Structures are given as structure tokens and as C-alpha cells.
């Protein structure tokens, strides 16, 4: 975005260690700051807050990525980005006046001497230190020193003011007064400000946005909180504002979950290191569960081309007919990995299927897109051509619309529910959802047991070909580029079989690239037509001119499933966040107030990037920008509740912390 005043673009900061290793302090930081904005950076100690501030100041240079201010890259420190350092950094041999004058005289060389002198006096006055102008810093209290440092910074009229825990060393009373003063001064001066702090109340009182950093190493932005409290703010008034405690508890919740994560990773690494000798690094045979569909094309290709054996993996694909069975086997530890719906890892962690929570993770997205909603032919005769005409029909009907989905709470169900909701059709009142095996859907449609179904295009195409139904919507009408199938396994299994998992993912990624390659189309069709995968229907499913079956042969080229291109593999926390809003929207679970903790332990993009690197691709990074679905609403992962409240039938259900399953505890996989 060109409008941003300061753009932090993909910053990664690596420090060499004395023992020859590397410490990745910050990883993939993206942030945009508008002019005049007050930003607070918050996080636990050692999370790289000050590192980020120093990068903005130009005192250090990022290992990769860059920072732009007004469109120009920051390469060295300068007076337009004045820093108020943590320990004031006043020169002890100069008086208050001399300290400020040094800055003014150096920076404002073109001004006359009288002007400069006046500016120095003005700024001493601004922080109320006229009586102490001739004193040396050693004769001042901590609060006064900090005021001098602030006066010195403001005297040279920086465009960006950077404050590094400015009030950390002060007593509560002084701190409160200074916060108030700083707020007034910054507001008057209209200066863009970035402040590092670990004080939640300070952050809320002063800032427009609070940027929460996750724990280091590899600290990133966990959450960005907008503070919409009215200005000018007064400490006491702010505390009485109804939003204040919501924001406060959200921030504290974030910090607490970061602490828990820290403890957990500390524990996990000790477990992993102690368990290493017994755990077989390469199990004999990887059992990978799947349901037949176009989504498994990468698995088929990887097997055919021997990508797995290249990585010294022996993979046994295990086909299922029903998703429930697959999940049961996965839970029982009879499967090592499974290609599941994108919602499954979160659903398992939350125990949505009524079973105990199971600590699933996903290291990569396998496919995106590829679904269609198929309605029975008779609706076409009733002139149901789009969502609106369907809504008219459904609302006038005595009986609810009977739709089949392959799995309760699957991505497909979320998509169809979202689409229906857009048209004012209440998915729980106007529609009756049935869970059917994808293989049984066509028969059920033929038998008139259902009015339609949502499934992969492979199945829909067969129903259309058989003249049973037509396509009323594809997932492009709901969310183009949505994650459809992801790789799922238990957290402890991933921990104990890290090498195996990375090797498997890398092979799948290489195969995925082939699946996306138009030149390989015929070979792919041939492969999938084999009985062990899809059978002879594959050719039909892979036809690029997708027959919508609604009379008009689709003129636009329908992209098939997206396997690799356009960042398809990213294990994207933001998408997980959207899934959580939908779980909550339909009343299936509370909205987890510790969602960042949940998502960061489930969506392991770090593994995705390692696998990508191993496969020879460049690492991918989830985008922090809000993304738009087909309905035009933007989803901002930092404010999911606002999104939820805007949706039709969006119930702002309970926001509560959920207890996450501990990965090490009682995992049948780990015991195997």
C-alpha cells in the first residue's frame, strides 16, 4: 500500500552466535504505519521488540527485508527518526540545556542562532524543566531525565519518534504523569510514534494500535489490536470505557498464551531430546489416509514418480469411503498422516466431533479450490438459476432443502453454509444437512433422498454427466483460493518424526507442482484413471471445460484444484482464524479467546517452509493483510469478532479460553 508512512516489509533479523550458530530474532515481520499513528509494540522480554525499533531507527540493518519511510528505504540512522533510548542516553557532562542544544544545533544548521536558542528553551519549557535547565543529568531524578530525553527528541521535530520502554524504570506516579504528558505532546506535534513497552495499560492508554509480538526466536506479529478509545484520553476516563477491559483482557490473554507456549516448547524440546534414541527416525511404512478425489493427485504423482523412495520413505496409501472412519483410524494411531479437510486439524483440537480433543497439526495445505454445489435437475426446471432464485424457492417451501455433505464441519460445509447465508437462507432452519459418503451422493440424488450436495468437482462432474443435476455454485462464488485439503497428523508424531514428515511434505510439494503443470495433463489423467485412484471417471473430472450442466456450456475456463501455484502450500493462520469464526458462527464451539495460541500450535508454517526449502522451492509466508471472500467482506485475522458480527446469522457466541490438548500426553501414536 502506497499510503503507508512507514512500511516494514518482510523483515528477518538474524544474529550470529559466538558458537558459530545463528539466532533468528525476528522472522517475516510485515507492518504498515500511517502518518500520525501511535503504535505500541508489546511482547515478552527477548521477543525482539527493541530489535525491531533499532531497525526502524536504522541503527541496525535487517538480514533480509527492508523498511520504507515515505517510500524511501531506511539504511542508516538519522534525525528524522529520533530515538528515546531505554536508559535516556543523556550526555552526563552536559547540562539539560546543552544536551538539547547539541541536538538542535546539529540538526537545524540552517536556522539562525536565535531561532535555535528559542527552540531549545521552548522544548525545555514544554517538559516543564526550566528550573533545571542548568543541571547535569546526575542531579536529576529518573523521571526528569526521561523528560529531557523526550524534549531532546521532540526539539528536532522528527517525523518518527521511537521510544524504547521509555517509562520502564520509573515509579508508578511519575510514570502516570509522564504518560499523560507524552500523549499530549505527541498529539500536539502530530508525530508518528512507535513505543516499545511491556505494560498493557500503558499500551492501551497511549496507542492507536497495539502490535503483539510472539516469543523469540523467530518472533513474528501474533496479533494487532486496534484501540478505538476516544481521544483526548484521560487515564481514568479510559479505564471506565466499556471497551477498555475487553481490549485489556485480550492483550493479557495474548501475553499469557505466549508464556504458555514458551513453557510448552521448552517442555517439548526436552521430551523430544530424551525420547529421540528410542523413536524410530524412519518408520517402516508411512500409512497415509485419504478419500478418493482429485485432491489426492499429488500423492498419486509422488508415488508414481518415486519421490517418496528418493527420500527413503515407504508410503502406503490407505483409502477410505467415509471421513469418520479416516478420523477414527487417525485418532487410534493406525494412520501416520492423513489428507483431510482443511477444517479437520482445528476440529480435532477442539473436539468438535464429540470426542476428546486431539492435538493435531498441519504442516501444509495440499489443495485449494475444487468444490461445486450440485442441485437436482428438477430445480433447474423450477428456474432456480442462482442464489436469489434458490432463496425464493427455499423460503417458500414447506420442507427444508436437503443437502448432503461429506463430513460434518468440513470446509465444504462451511463454504455452502456461508454461501447460503449470503442469500438470506438460514442453514440450520431452511436447510437440512445430511452426512453422506461422497461415493453415495450420486445415488442419493438419483433416489431423490437429497436435493443436492457439495463435493469435489470430480463427483459433481459425474452427476452432471449422468444428467442428475447441475452446478448452481462453485467455490469460486464463495471463496476463491480457499484451503480445501490439508495434511494432518498428531503433534507428538510430528515431533518424533520430524525428518520423515519433512521428507513426505517435500515429496508431496514436488508432485503438486507437476499436478499444476498443463504439460503433464495427459499423463496425470492416465495416472488417476488407474483403478487404485479414481478409475475411468478421472478423464471426465479433469476436463478443463467444466460442464456446469445448466444448459450454457461454461465459457470461462474453470481452474481445477490448485495444487502448487500462487502460494498454495501455505499453512495459513489467517485461514484458520476464519474457520474458527465459522465454528463459532454456527454454534459448534465457543470462539477461543486464546486463538493465537491454538492457531500457532496447529498451523505449522515453519514446517511448510522447511519442506519447501527441501523440495527446492522458496519459502512462503502467510500474508497479514485482510483478505476478501467472494461476498466482498474482508476478513482481518486481527479482528475476527468484528467480521463475525457483520455476517448474516453471525452469532457473537461466547468468547472463552479453550484448553488445548497437550501434545505429549496420551498420544496413541507416540506410544506405538
Amino acid at each position, binding site marked *: 500500500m502506497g499510503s503507508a508512512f512507514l512500511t516494514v516489509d518482510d523483515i528477518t533479523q538474524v544474529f550470529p552466535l559466538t558458537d558459530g550458530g545463528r539466532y533468528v530474532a525476528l522472522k517475516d515481520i510485515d507492518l504498515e504505519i500511517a502518518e500520525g499513528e501511535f503504535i505500541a509494540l508489546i511482547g515478552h522480554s527477548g521477543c525482539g521488540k527493541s530489535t525491531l525499533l533499532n531497525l526502524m531507527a536504522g541503527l541496525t540493518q535487517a538480514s533480509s527485508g527492508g523498511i520504507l519511510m515515505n517510500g524511501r528505504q531506511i539504511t542508516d540512522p538519522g*534525525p528524522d527518526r529520533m530515538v528515546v533510548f531505554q536508559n535516556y542516553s543523556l550526555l552526563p*557532562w552536559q547540562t539539560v540545556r546543552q544536551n538539547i542544544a*547539541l541536538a538542535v544545533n*546539529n540538526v537545524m544548521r540552517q536556522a539562525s542562532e536565535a531561532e535555535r536558542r528559542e527552540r531549545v528553551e521552548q522544548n525545555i519549557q514544554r517538559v516543564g524543566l526550566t528550573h533545571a535547565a542548568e543541571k547535569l543529568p546526575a542531579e536529576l531524578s529518573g523521571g526528569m531525565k526521561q523528560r529531557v530525553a523526550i524534549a531532546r527528541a521532540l526539539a528536532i521535530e522528527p517525523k518518527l519518534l521511537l521510544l524504547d520502554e521509555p517509562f520502564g524504570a520509573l515509579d508508578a506516579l511519575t510514570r502516570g504523569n509522564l504518560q499523560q504528558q507524552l500523549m499530549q505532546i505527541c498529539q500536539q506535534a502530530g508525530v508518528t510514534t512507535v513505543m516499545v513497552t511491556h505494560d498493557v495499560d500503558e499500551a492501551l492508554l497511549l496507542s492507536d494500535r497495539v502490535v503483539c509480538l510472539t516469543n523469540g526466536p523467530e518472533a513474528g506479529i501474533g496479533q494487532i489490536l486496534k484501540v478505538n478509545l476516544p481521544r483526548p484520553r484521560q487515564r481514568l476516563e479510559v479505564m471506565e470505557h466499556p471497551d477498555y477491559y475487553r481490549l485489556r483482557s485480550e492483550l493479557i490473554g495474548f501475553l499469557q498464551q505466549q508464556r504458555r507456549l514458551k513453557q510448552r516448547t521448552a517442555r517439548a524440546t526436552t521430551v523430544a531430546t530424551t525420547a529421540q534414541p528410542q523413536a524410530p527416525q524412519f518408520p517402516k511404512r508411512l500409512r497415509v489416509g485419504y478419500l478418493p478425489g482429485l485432491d489426492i493427485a499429488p500423492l498419486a504423482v509422488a508415488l508414481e514418480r518415486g519421490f517418496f523412495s528418493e527420500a527413503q520413505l515407504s508410503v502406503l496409501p490407505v483409502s477410505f469411503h467415509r471421513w469418520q472412519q479416516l478420523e477414527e483410524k487417525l485418532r487410534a494411531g493406525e494412520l501416520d498422516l492423513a489428507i483431510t479437510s482443511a477444517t479437520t486439524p482445528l476440529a480435532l483440537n477442539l473436539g468438535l466431533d464429540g470426542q476428546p480433543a486431539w492435538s493435531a497439526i498441519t504442516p501444509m495445505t495440499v489443495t485449494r479450490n475444487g468444490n461445486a454445489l450440485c442441485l437436482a435437475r428438477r430445480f433447474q426446471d423450477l428456474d432456480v438459476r442462482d442464489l436469489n432464485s434458490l432463496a425464493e424457492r427455499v423460503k417458500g417451501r414447506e420442507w427444508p432443502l436437503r443437502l448432503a455433505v461429506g463430513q460434518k464441519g468440513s470446509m465444504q460445509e462451511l463454504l455452502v453454509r456461508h454461501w447460503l447465508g449470503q442469500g438470506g437462507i438460514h442453514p440450520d432452519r431452511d436447510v437440512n444437512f445430511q452426512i453422506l459418503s461422497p461415493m453415495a451422493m450420486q445415488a442419493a440424488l438419483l433416489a431423490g433422498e437429497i436435493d443436492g450436495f457439495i463435493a469435489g468437482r470430480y463427483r459433481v462432474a459425474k452427476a452432471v454427466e449422468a444428467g442428475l443435476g447441475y452446478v448452481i455454485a462453485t467455490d469460486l462464488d464463495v471463496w476463491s483460493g480457499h484451503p480445501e485439503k490439508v495434511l494432518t497428523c498428531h503433534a507428538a508424531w510430528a515431533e518424533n518424526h520430524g525428518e520423515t514428515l519433512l521428507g513426505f511434505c517435500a515429496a508431496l510439494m514436488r508432485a503438486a507442482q507437476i499436478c499444476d503443470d498443463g504439460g503433464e495433463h495427459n499423463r496425470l489423467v492416465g495416472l488417476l484413471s488407474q483403478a487404485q485412484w479414481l478409475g475411468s471417471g478421472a478423464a471426465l473430472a479433469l476436463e478443463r471445460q467444466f460442464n456446469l450442466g445448466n444448459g450454457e456450456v461454461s465459457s470461462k475456463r474453470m481452474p481445477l484444484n490448485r495444487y502448487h501455484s500462487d502460494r498454495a502450500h501455505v499453512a495459513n493462520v489467517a485461514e484458520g482464524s476464519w474457520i474458527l469464526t465459522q465454528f463459532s458462527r454456527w454454534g459448534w464451539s465457543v470462539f477461543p479467546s486464546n486463538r493465537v495460541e491454538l492457531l500457532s500450535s496447529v498451523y505449522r508454517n515453519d514446517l511448510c517452509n522447511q519442506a519447501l526449502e527441501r523440495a527446492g522451492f522458496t519459502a512462503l509466508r502467510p500474508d497479514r493483510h485482510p483478505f476478501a471472500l467472494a461476498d466482498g467482506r474482508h476478513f482481518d485475522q486481527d479482528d475476527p469478532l468484528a467480521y463475525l458480527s457483520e455476517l448474516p446469522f453471525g452469532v457473537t457466541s461466547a468468547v472463552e479460553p479453550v484448553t488445548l490438548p497437550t501434545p505429549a500426553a496420551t498420544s496413541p501414536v507416540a506410544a506405538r
Partner: protein
Amino acid sequence: MTALTPESRSRPPAKLRRLQPALRSSMPYLICIGGFLIAWQIVSMVLGVARLPGPINVIVETWDPYISQPFFDDGGTSKGLGWQILISLQRVTMGYGLAAVVGIAIGGVLGLNRFIGKGLDPVIQVLRTVPPLAWFPISLMVFQDANTSAIFVIFITAIWPIIINTAVGIREIPQDYTNVARVLRLRKGAYIRNIVIPATVPYVFTGLRISVGLAWLAIVAAEMLKADGGIGYFIWDAYNAGGDSSSSQIILAILYVGVVGLALDRLVAYGGKLVAKGGN
């Protein structure tokens, strides 16, 4: 002091009460120095006054002219101890002053320029351990003059701590201050004036203080070897004269050397305190 009864302790006379704090604070000095003098006297009595005069003998034998007339001048090298010390101090001033100027300059270069600082470090580390008198023969050969050689020995002895401390002081400028300089984009001149010099002064004065002690050590030794006049010369001359009061004269001169050395040390320390205002 008389032994105090409990009553008198609880209510001592007003005069005594006012005296008490002064007495009490000087007690350690009085007792210890007195003890030292007594021990000295005893050793002197055991060894015989001819070999080691006791404190009383020293004062008696040197009272006239060395104590009573510090500034007599009989021409030649026969001068009062005051003159002798002034001659030595003059040499020290020249050698030490030169060492201070050159040492701070070299130290500054070594501190500001990491390349030179690193490259010359081994040379400095080797040369600084050379004892002062080892320089004397070579400087005599170079300068062909006892007085200049003595000054050179002082210079070469005193310069190392000044160089090393100045360089360290510059390298140890707190990151905070250099960060301020970087953010303000201070020019080199302003940076040296406002930050390098004030931040380095305490280190420089530490170096100067170590050096002044070394310089004083060196001058006495150098003068004993070869010089006309000076306190070191006086000591050696008295020893060679072998007169009755020689040992007393030597002991008195030693005492003077010690007192002057202490005074020099304190003087430099005081100077440092004056310059480093605000300090860290």
C-alpha cells in the same frame, strides 16, 4: 588519656568532649606511626647507629643544613634538598608532559582507528613491560647527554599507561552515546568534542595517574646512574661520600622522595576530578 571511671565517662568535661572526635580519628595514625618509629629505633639500636641510624639520629644529624635550610646553595652540586627536588621535578615535568601530550595523541589514534589499534597492540604490550632503566644506556647512546637521557627515560616509561588507557577509553565509549551521535548525525568534529573527549577523560586521567608514579620512580633511578643534581643524584652522592651522616642523609632523602611522589599522585587525581565534571 587517663583511665576513665564510669562516672567521668558518662559526663566528661566540656573541653575533653570537644577534643574527643579529633583525637579518636587520629588515634590509628598516632599509634601505628609511633609503633613504626619505635620499632625502627629498636632495630637501629640492635644493629648499631653506624649501620642504621634511628629516627632521632636522622633528625639530629641532618637538621643543619638539610632540614633547616632546604634552599641553601654552595655552588656546584652542593645544594639544599629543596633545590635537588626541584631539579628532579623539572626533569619529570618535561618528560611526563611530553609523554602526556604524545601519549594522548597516539592513544586517540589507536582508539579511533581499529585497524591501527589492532596492529600496534602487540608492540605496545611488549614495550610497556620494559623496566625504565633498561632504556637508559640506549638513550645515552642516542642523545649523548645525561640530562636529555634522563628526560627520555621518564618519557618512555610514562607514555604506555597513557596510550593504553586513552585507547581503551575511546573504545569503551558507551553504545548509548555513540547511538545518540549516529541518530543526530554528529559530524566528526562535534562527535570528538562532545562525546569522545568527555567520555574518555576519566580513562585518560587514570593513565596519567599511573604514569606520574612511574615517572617519579624512573627519575630517581636515572639520576642515581648519571646526572648532575637532583634527588637521585643526592642519594647516590651521599652514599659515595661515606661520611658520618651519610646514612641519615639518605634516609631523609628517601622520605622526601616518598612525600613528593604522593603529592604528585594526588595532584593528578585532583586535576582529573576537576576536568571530569558530571562524570559517569
